């Protein structure tokens, strides 16, 4: 007999609605709310031993604490699989399922299965980390969504062959693997058949979908540079030598903001790079090669630019996902707007 644990929010945990959204995490033995249906669908093979309940707002505003508390609950529990939700279109609930699911999967290395509607923001945030099945819009789809989660959970636990995301019904995790077609169809037949369809204007389906290109339109030029405030943002990993914000050397999720208002240039020994993707020798000897404060100060004196923004912003680009990079950029933009920055020099390495 395999064991499972389910995560749900305060509403489905029968604590209460919005007024109870600050409910701190609790773990209960046995089945609460949707856990009853989940157990019914899992049948004899898997026993749901515990239900974890946490308020959506609590998880949203105290994420680290909530996650740590729940990981603590789980430390002495035996379980083979973890479920979260279904969260339907409830955004905060979806993000909570994703946050806890990702943490459980990383810490305990067990499969994590959730379900959300395609419009739930949790889908894009966490589809790469856990199995998120394509779910209904509201709790009316509860039974159906739980059945999908349970069926897939049983498949995993029994060691059955898992099919592709599309065939199983979960949102693809951005993970591509080779498979043998059953029944077998040779590439020669597939390529000629696809060409005939394309030639005849019939629908065809590529085997390698090209993701839509996410291009950003080029900004209009600054009209009068001599009055403009210019900031430097870099993914080259230049930080104060003690790296006070503990920005990672690769696959960064953190960024830093450092005051340069009283500096003419970045001095070696005061700043360095923590970027793991290139030879750091030159940048460590002269950090201005990545954060060109020396050159901008010269322009400032010559009147070419109005002024240099008081801070520079920095993270590490190597191995950093597009998603994390975009999030960090959105956060940095708020500071740039606040500082009434007109133009940014974005230095990559």
């Amino acid at each position, binding site marked *: 007999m395999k064991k499972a644990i389910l995560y749900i929010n305060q509403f489905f945990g029968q604590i209460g609605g919005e007024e109870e959204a600050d409910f701190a995490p609790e773990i209960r033995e046995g089945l609460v709310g949707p856990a009853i249906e989940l157990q019914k669908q899992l049948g004899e093979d898997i026993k749901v031993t515990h239900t974890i309940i946490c308020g959506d707002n609590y998880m949203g505003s105290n994420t680290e604490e909530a996650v740590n508390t729940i990981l603590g609950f789980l430390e002495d529990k035996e379980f083979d699989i973890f479920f979260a939700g279904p969260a339907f279109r409830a955004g905060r609930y979806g993000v909570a399922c994703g946050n806890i699911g990702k943490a459980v999967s990383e810490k305990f290395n067990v499969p994590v299965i959730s379900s959300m509607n395609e419009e739930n923001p949790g889908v894009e945030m966490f589809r*790469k980390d856990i199995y998120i099945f394509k779910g209904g819009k509201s709790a009316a789809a509860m039974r159906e969504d739980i059945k999908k989660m349970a069926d897939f959970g049983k498949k995993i636990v029994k060691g059955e062959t*898992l099919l*592709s*995301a*599309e*065939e199983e019904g979960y949102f*693809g*995790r*951005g*993970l*591509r*693997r*080779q*498979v*043998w*077609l059953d029944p*077998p*169809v*040779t*590439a*020669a*037949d*597939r*390529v*000629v058949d*696809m*060409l*005939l369809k*394309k*030639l*005849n204007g019939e629908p*065809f389906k*590529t*085997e*390698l979908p*090209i*993701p*839509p*290109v996410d291009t950003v339109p080029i900004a209009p030029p600054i009209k009068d540079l001599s009055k403009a405030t210019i900031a430097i943002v870099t993914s080259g990993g230049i930080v104060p030598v003690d790296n006070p914000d503990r920005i990672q050397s690769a696959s960064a999720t953190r960024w830093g903001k450092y005051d340069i208002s009283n500096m003419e240039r970045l001095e070696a020994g005061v700043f360095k790079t923590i970027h793991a993707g290139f030879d750091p020798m030159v940048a460590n000897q002269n950090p201005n090669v990545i954060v060109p404060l020396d050159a901008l100060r010269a322009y400032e004196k010559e009147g070419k630019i109005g002024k240099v923004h008081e801070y520079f912003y920095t993270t590490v680009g190597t191995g950093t996902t597009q998603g994390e990079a975009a999030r960090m950029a959105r956060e940095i933009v708020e500071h740039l707007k606040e500082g009434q920055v007109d133009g940014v020099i974005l230095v990559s390495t």
Partner: protein
Amino acid sequence: MRLELGNFYVKDIVFGEETSYSNGILTINKEEALKVVMEDEHITDADLHIVKPGDRVRLVPVKEAIEPRVRVDGGPVFPGVTGDLMQAGNGRTHALKDCSVLVVGKHWGGFQDGLIDMSGEGAKYTYYSQLKNIVLVADTDEEFEKREQQKKNRVLRWAGMRLAEYIGSCVKDLEPEELEVFELEPIVKRIKQENDLPSVVLVLQFQSQMEELGYNDLVYGWDTNRMLPTFMHPNEILDGAVISGSFMPSSSKWSTYDIQNFPVIRRLYKEHGKTLNFLGVIASNLNVALDQKERSALLVAQIAKSLGADGAIVAEEGYGNPDADFIACIVALEDAGIKTVGLTPECTGRDGRSQPLVTMDPKADAIVSTGDVSQLIELPPMETVIGELESLARDGFAGGWWGDEVLGPSVREDGSIIMENNSMFCGDQVVGWSTKTVKEF
């Protein structure tokens, strides 16, 4: 141009008195065959084995595969390579089917070499586990490349071709069990029924990345790196005008056997006059410099347009850097108004999460994927190894390694192995055999 391929279906291969073919049994006089191999004084050691599907045999390092054939009216099977230049694709060629000559290094392998398991879990990864194979395992005095990761494998590859011609010659005067006829009228002299169908070209991007001569595919003996795209008759491809090279991770390579049998060409022939009008083949290449990529793409699109193509299939021999040529060529064809489908393996990384092609373009909206070169494969020990198992870990195979912090070495003490699909011999079968695809999980 009319090519008659006379087929002899080999049911079994044995060593015997006289190299001959009778009732499905191919008999090989081993001594005589080895004499042909040893004609090149650079061969220092050679032996022949027969391996069949189901045999508990692992072959590594595999360098080349060739179908034994003979040109009935005389002349080399590979014009400009194993003999004088002459027109390929016309006349009668006899072939021993369901069997191949495999060339295996006795000791030394390299980046471009591969592995074949004739049975067990590993057999599904290559086409050659389904064939009866005459295995030449040999060594040479090519000291200059013995410990190089990139090997031209010239002496061994040419020995394989000589051997294939020698074996093929035993069916020269026999009546084939099956006669396949490949014939296309000149493009401007076709009947209305053919002309009214959508016209299609097949663009073959042959491997040509090495600047130094001796590594790349050859067209009539000419290095594809020094070639501009050119129009070819499909019969030339099927009849020995092109031979495989000795560069690129093995799984994405096209062996000479692959090229001789090219399933996509055969399927296009089948459709010719029924659903499409098969114009022919545009032979292109995969040079590394950007201007060379652009020049080839421009010329391919121009030739296709000038020929009146409505549709095109583009196939690349390799991945990585060649993806740039592959995508550029598809884009150039689409921009010229030619509806195009691509044929390629992917490289998604060991975790499957990397971008599958080095470059991508929304215009490449129709691609058939034949496999994932980077997938990890773990296989148990095999009873017999022909060649040298250690080469997989030692010699810089594209899919093998000496050490890995997590996975350990590719070759373990008990003879079990862990490798990337990269080194499965011609495993991605881009020429069209592949029944693999890649899906998102």
